[in-house]
C-alpha cells in the first residue's frame, strides 16, 4: 500500500499529466459542450493512484491537461468511476 508521500511523488513524474477535479458548474458546462452524459466520457477508476493523490471521488469529473506532440496542450476529461 503506497503512503501519502509516495502518492504525491507520482504527480511529479514526467509521464503523469496535470489532473484536477472540476467544479460542479464547470462539469455541467463540459457535458453540455460535448453533448454527453457523464458516463460517456472516458473513465478513470477511483483506485487510480492519481485520483487518490488529488482526492477525487466517484462521480467527479477530472480535467487532464496533456502535453500533445500534435496540438501543444490539449484538455481532456475523465469521469471517476468506482473501482
Amino acid at each position, binding site marked *: 500500500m*503506497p503512503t501519502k508521500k*509516495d502518492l504525491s*511523488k*507520482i504527480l*511529479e*513524474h*514526467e*509521464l*503523469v*499529466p496535470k*489532473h484536477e477535479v472540476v467544479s460542479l458548474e464547470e462539469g455541467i458546462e463540459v457535458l453540455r459542450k460535448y453533448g454527453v452524459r457523464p458516463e460517456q466520457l*472516458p*473513465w*478513470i*477508476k477511483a483506485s*487510480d*493512484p*492519481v*485520483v487518490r493523490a488529488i482526492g477525487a471521488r466517484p462521480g467527479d469529473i477530472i480535467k*487532464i491537461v*496533456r502535453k*500533445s*506532440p*500534435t*496540438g*501543444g*496542450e*490539449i484538455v481532456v476529461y*475523465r469521469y471517476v*468511476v468506482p*473501482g
Partner: protein
Amino acid sequence: MSEVTELEKLIEERLRGRVPAKIVEDAKNVLKKYTLTREELEKILEMIVEEYENNIIDPGEPVGTVAAQSIGEPSTQMTLRTFHYAGVRELNVTLGLPRLIELVDARKTPSTPLMYVYLDEEHKYDREKAAAIAREIELTRIENVTLRVDVDIFNNAVIIELDPEMLADKGLTIEDVKKVLEKLRTKKARVVISERNPNEIVIQFEEGIDPSKIEKLRDRILKMKIKGIKGINKVIIQRRGDEYVLVCEGSNLAEVMKVKGVDYRKVRTNNIKEVEEVLGIEAARALLIEEIMSVLEEQGLDVDIRHVMLVADMMTRTGTVKQIGRHGVAGEKPSVLARAAFEVTVKQLVDAASRGEVDELQGVAESVIVGGYIPVGTGRIKLVYNPYLKESSFQ
C-alpha cells in the same frame, strides 16, 4: 520590441481558441522573422485558420478503420526477428512485431522487462556514485557471490565458499553474508566464519540433516536475498551525454522510485501494466503511445502518431488498460453480430442467445451483415422533411 509584442497580440487575438495551441506558438515563431504589413499578416492568419479547418476530420469519418489500416499495413512489413541487440550489448530487448503484439494485447508483463533509471543531480555525473546506486538496486542472492556449496552430512554442516572478487564487485563484506545466513530459519544452527579459510562460512546444524532434503536446503540457501530490489536482475551503467543512466533488466517501478539518489520524476519502465498501477491510467496511455511509436520508428516505419493515440485512447477508455482483441475492445462491442464477426463466432452467438441479447444494428459490421447502410460518412446522417414546419418556427 514593441512591434514583436504587437505582432504576438494580433496572432493571439486571431488564432487563440480557433486553432490548437501549438499552431499559435509556431505562427508566432515563424512570423517574427519577417517584416509584414498588417494586411499581409491578417491575410496569412486568415489562411492559417482556413487551412486548419480544411484539415479537421469530418463528422462520420471512420477514424478507427483508417487507424487500423495505417498501423496494420506497415506492421506486415516488419521483420519477424524477435531479438535484437539495441544499443546495449549485454541486454536483449523484444522489438518489432512481437513487441507490437505484446503492447496491443496488454500483457501483464513484457517478455523483456526493462527499466531506465535516471539519477538526481548529485549522482548523475559521477560514475562511482552511479555504481553505488546500481549496487543498491541490483538484486544480489547468495548464489551470485558463491563459488561452491558443500553439505557435510557427517558433521551436520553446510560449507559455503564465497568469491571475494564478486563480493568486492557487489560492495559486500563476508559479515553481510553471514548476517543474511543467520536469518535462515529452518532448524537451530550456528553460523560461523571458518578458521581455515576467511572466505568460507560454515552453518553448523544442531540436529542431523535429512539426506532427502539436502537439495532443497541448498537451493534455499542459494536463493536467499542479500540486498537489492525484487525483480531487478541486472544493472548496467550507461553513459548518455554527460550523465550516467542505469539500465535494468527486470522492472519494479514502485520500489525503484523510493530509492534515494534516483530521479523519481524520470524513472522509466517498459511495463505498461505496472505503470498503470503505480502512476495511473493517463501515464499508461502516454507510455503506450511512446512504446508503440518507438517500435514502429525503430523499424523505419512512418506512422502518424494520431493513429497510435486513437488506439491508446480506446485501450484506456474504461480506466484500465484493455487489449484490442476479443478480451478487450473488440469483445466489449455492444452488438452481438459485430462480436461474432470478429472471433469465436459460435461461442458469441450461443452466449448471446442464452442471454436473450438484442442487436440494435447501429454499428458498421452488423449493418454490413444484414445488408443495411453503414453509419459512416454520409450514411451517418438522416434528413427528414417535415412539410408542416413553418419558416416562422426557426429562430
